[in-house]
């Protein structure tokens, strides 16, 4: 009787029971406290015995390895033999290291002090050099026509009314486009255009001076993507160093740029903007800034001149706030934000293809 029980426990502990038998044992363990304790003790014992066995084996193996190593090192003094010679290399070099460290310290402190006294000067100098990236076609046109004059000696071409340009991008499938306020300020009419949709007339539904955000609506009421936008508008703050991408129209062709978030505040510590290391030029204003998940994180707004690689972008959270203030309009469909990101798993090139169709050149004809 006692042996039978032991045999059962032994088989259980070693996992040699069939499923039904195992189930039976477990059932019995639930009912019989005494039995449960016994079987657990047995299991522990067998488990420990086995663990002892495997450990013993590894220990023996390691002991053999160690012996082997010792013999090897004694015969050709390779692995261990040469180590005592360089027991503590630092000891030998520490005076030199100490000298080097002190020199470094002096120069660091010196530089800090010097830059500190210069810092205030720099600050005042920097104040006047924020530059919005609106492209002025008039200037180009004039210089172009001047060139033409020089070449062809003809000045018959009339100069068209003031034209400005920037970039913009879709934020909803039913035709709402976002750009910068400074791109459309003083506009008479605003057209957008890209390769996928051709030219479209839009009207400005909201232009927020303080946040430098403008929302346009495509006038054509039949305009609809028929599918949701493939990117979302991020409501969270981007992280420092996050990779970001932009698409814009500093030329007639769409131009891609990439870089990182270099600061979480904008020009003069503006908390509503990022500093980004993306190459941008006049015409990039209002262009989207995407992160590496494909979501929109900002709107390109300007650069700091005399500083290389410092561009600024309005944060997407600001854009969301502005969108919230959009007045309800009974005639047109309301702005519906995209809810799903479909670009997460695409590679960069595929993503740009998707983004590209939703980015527009914004052409502004100003009141004369």
């Amino acid at each position: 009787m006692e042996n039978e029980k032991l045999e059962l426990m032994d088989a259980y502990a070693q996992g040699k029971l069939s499923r039904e038998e195992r189930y039976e044992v477990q059932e019995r363990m639930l009912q019989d406290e005494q039995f449960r304790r016994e079987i657990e003790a047995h299991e522990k014992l067998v488990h420990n015995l086995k663990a002892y066995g495997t450990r013993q084996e590894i220990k023996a193996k390691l002991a053999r390895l160690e012996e082997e190593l010792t013999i090897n090192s004694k015969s050709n003094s390779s692995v261990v033999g040469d180590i005592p010679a360089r027991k503590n290399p630092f000891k030998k070099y520490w005076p030199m290291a100490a000298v080097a460290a002190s020199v470094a310290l002096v120069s660091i402190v010196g530089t800090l002090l010097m830059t500190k006294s210069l810092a205030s000067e720099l600050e005042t100098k920097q104040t006047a050099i924020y530059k919005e990236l609106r492209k002025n076609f008039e200037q180009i046109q004039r210089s172009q026509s001047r060139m033409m004059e020089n070449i062809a000696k003809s000045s018959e071409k009339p100069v068209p009314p003031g034209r400005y340009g920037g970039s913009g991008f879709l934020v909803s499938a039913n035709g709402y486009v976002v750009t910068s306020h400074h791109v459309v300020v003083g506009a008479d009419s605003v057209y957008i255009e890209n390769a996928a949709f051709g030219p479209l007339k839009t009207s400005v539904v909201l232009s927020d001076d303080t946040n430098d955000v403008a929302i346009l609506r495509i006038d054509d009421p039949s305009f609809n993507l028929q599918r949701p936008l493939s990117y979302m508008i991020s409501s969270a703050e981007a992280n420092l160093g996050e990779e970001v991408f932009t698409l814009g129209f500093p030329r007639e062709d769409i131009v891609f740029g990439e870089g990182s978030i270099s600061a979480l505040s904008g020009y003069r510590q503006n908390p509503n903007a990022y500093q980004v290391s993306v190459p941008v030029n006049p015409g990039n204003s209002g262009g989207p800034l995407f992160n590496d998940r494909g979501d929109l994180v900002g709107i390109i707004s300007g650069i700091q001149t005399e500083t290389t690689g410092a561009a600024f972008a309005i944060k997407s959270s600001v854009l969301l706030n502005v969108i919230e203030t959009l007045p309800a309009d009974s005639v047109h469909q309301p702005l519906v934000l995209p809810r799903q990101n479909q670009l997460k798993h695409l590679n960069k090139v595929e993503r740009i293809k998707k983004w590209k169709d939703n980015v527009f050149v914004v052409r502004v004809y100003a009141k004369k």
Partner: protein
Amino acid sequence: MAEYYFDELIFNEIRKKNEVALRELYKTHYPMVYHLICSNNGTEQEAKDVYQEAVLAFYERAQQPDFVLSCKIKTYLYAVSRRLWLKRLWEKKRFDNNIPDNEPFPALDEELVDFEERERNFETMKQSLEALGEPCRSILEDFYIRDLTMESIREKFGYTNADNAKNQKYKCLQRLKKIFFVKYEAADGK
């Protein structure tokens, strides 16, 4: 890059209990631990002991299916060796907390609690088996560790029939159980 590749390879082979990989691993990182201990009040023999324990800890950990190699093997071994050596120094009252911890390994405490428990159980079992004496010890080792069948055990120890051998085995097991749990509880209570 090459080092990571090497680590990955060694780790996977050790999982498969490949002895060549274990040998490579042992050889590769010994100088580091030797240097660590010999420049911190230790002898060569102590370095060997500590290193063996560290490799053992790694080896056992690698066998566990849930273990993911989250750092370089070198880092793991250094961290474990350092900790073990500090403990020994503490026991020898020669402790100075001056050993550089240049590559800290965050979850070290959890790693080592487990390891120390296994070490303790191992020692307990070893003592229990010694106290058990022959032929019981050999019978149990043959059956549970070397996985011999009852039939070959019967032959080896010269029992007349299988039932006798089985009875003997169970008696031995019961005795071992008594000895082991007395010691186990004593060690646990310490």
